[in-house]
């Protein structure tokens, strides 16, 4: 849960660069191009290694020298992952992540509207509080949360994990959504009021569609946070309802040989949703929709 970005998600480098590439006239050099290609390949190599290890024939997996370009492929490592409880861990992970997202998004939408659209006594204090909450080190929270959940008889259950995950997710979602709401000029809503819209109707008909991409992006970020989290899940769940990261960690056991093929197959399956989601927000994050609304 440490990868929380307090600056907001708006700073999307890839999309911003896309609009700038047309400027041209930049001096490029062949050496830089070759270096860029080489570094890209080096950087991607671990990912490539994970993927081919997951699909390699068992005989080809552990060889000296290692096989860099396998010719025989199999899905048997994936089958063993399914046999060893992948699906139950997947179900827990999905359930926990979706519930956390649903709770935090509903709460955060209201809170971010208040912070971005109203001026009220205590607003500045609230904003500082949200920043401070994002800085709280997780293990300082985990100890008391664990003890309290234990007292309530909830520890080692799925609700325990959901409750614990809202702690780091909610401040982050409020903060990020606040940015998206503040990014929509009030003039648009005010125009709707002029046309006789009630404030609630203006919210649903005007503001809500405009912040919808922000809602999607923030939900995905929150989902990824919960999906990837390990430290809380390791303490707050038992084997029966382990999340995927805890399930993956259980393979690392010094007392027996690590089944690398199966582990890589599990890692591939665990990573695919994150990868897909991440690519979605890369595209969606551009503020183009709002900009168009203002111009049009």
């Amino acid at each position, binding site marked *: 849960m440490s*990868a929380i970005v307090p600056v907001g998600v708006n700073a999307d480098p*890839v999309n911003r*660069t896309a609009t700038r590439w047309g*400027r041209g*006239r930049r001096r*490029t*050099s062949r050496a*830089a*191009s070759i*270096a*860029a*290609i080489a*570094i890209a*390949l080096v*950087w*991607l190599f*671990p990912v490539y*290694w*994970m993927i081919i290890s997951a699909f390699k024939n068992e005989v080809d997996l552990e060889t*000296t020298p*290692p096989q860099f370009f396998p010719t025989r492929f199999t899905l048997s490592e994936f089958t063993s992952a399914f046999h060893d409880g992948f699906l139950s861990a997947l179900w827990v992970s999905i359930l926990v992540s979706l519930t956390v997202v649903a709770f935090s998004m509903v*709460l*955060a939408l209201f*809170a971010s509207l208040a912070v971005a*659209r*109203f001026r*009220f006594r205590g607003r500045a204090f609230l904003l500082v509080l949200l920043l401070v*909450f994002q*800085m709280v*080190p*997780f*293990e*300082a*929270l*985990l*100890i008391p949360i*664990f*003890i309290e959940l234990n007292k309530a008889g909830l520890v080692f259950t799925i609700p325990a994990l959901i409750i*614990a995950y809202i*702690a780091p997710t*909610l*401040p982050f979602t*409020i903060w990020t959504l606040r940015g998206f709401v503040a990014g929509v*000029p009030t003039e648009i809503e005010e125009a709707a*009021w*002029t046309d006789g819209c009630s404030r609630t109707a203006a919210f649903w008909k005007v503001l809500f569609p405009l912040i919808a991409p922000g809602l999607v992006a923030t939900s995905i970020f929150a989902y*990824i946070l919960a999906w990837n989290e*390990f*430290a809380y899940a390791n*303490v707050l769940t038992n084997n029966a309802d382990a999340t*995927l*990261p805890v399930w993956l*960690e259980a393979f*690392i056991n*010094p007392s027996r040989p690590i089944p*690398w093929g199966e*582990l*890589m197959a599990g*890692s591939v399956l665990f*990573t695919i949703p994150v990868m897909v989601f991440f690519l979605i927000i890369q595209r969606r994050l551009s503020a183009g929709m709002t900009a168009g609304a203002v111009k049009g």
Partner: protein
Amino acid sequence: MSAVEGPLRATPRRRFGGSARHDDLTPSGTPRGSRRLVATWVPYALVSPSMLVLLLIIGFPLIFALVISFQDFNAFQLVSGGPIQWVGFQNYQRAISTDLLPVLVRTVLFTVANVGLTMGIGFALALLMRRAGKWPRILLSVSLVVVWAIPQVTATEIFQWLFDYAFGVVNWVLTQIHLGGFQYHDWWSNPVSLLGIATLIVVWGAVPFVALTLFAGLLQIPDDLYEAARVDGAGFWSQLRAITVPLLLPILLLLTTLSVLWDSRVFTQIYFLQQQGGIPSDTNLFGLWAYETSFAGQEYGKGAAISMLSAAILLIVTAVAVRQMVKSAATA
């Protein structure tokens, strides 16, 4: 107050077609001083559910953590709810007298190494992308985005496989290029090599964000500036010193602060490597130390004391960094 302000506000309100009920929705950033009765309860109603939840699951636990850091709270108290003893600063004293100094030094060195490498490599890659041709640049940025999306858990397990003692690619390559006999080399029993590989995993995963953000920043700098510098005979380094670094300074400072926050709290990567045969007491950073004291050693009181110490240290460091950032933003 409203009697004085009423007529003054009449004009702008009419422009927005306002009947009275619109006043409470004043745009942020343009304070108009309109505090009507309608306005007062709406925002509070909107924030109160979130605030209630946050107080329950962050505020209250924080206070509770502070409380148990002064108690003898172990497995016995956890299971039986048994008698709780107040022990004053004993937990803090035990934390300070046992491992505080080595853990502090280790955390600082690890953070400095990780932040330095991430920022250095990230900056270099951003500069490189600026000079590379179109397709190499796209290839590099796509690779960086892919790696950026890789979860820490996955990243760590890939590197554990790459550094496997028997069939890991790294041992094979190192032996192949005659760097020594790395066949069956165990990377985990030595604390320095374990933390070195943890650094590798962290830097590999953290560089994309830094590189792409800095690259986006670089593209905001007009090429004319560099053209002019080149005409004046400025070389690569003087262009870097006179144009690039000063203009990117706010982004550089922000990224450095974030990296310090994240890297000083590295957890998953080191924990996984420890599970494969590392020695926890020789490789723990602050967070791991508190975690293992509490949940492996079941000394919740001491664990809470360690968390409080680390939170205090981190707070001081960040406060200094943030002040520095605000100052430089003010002068820039």
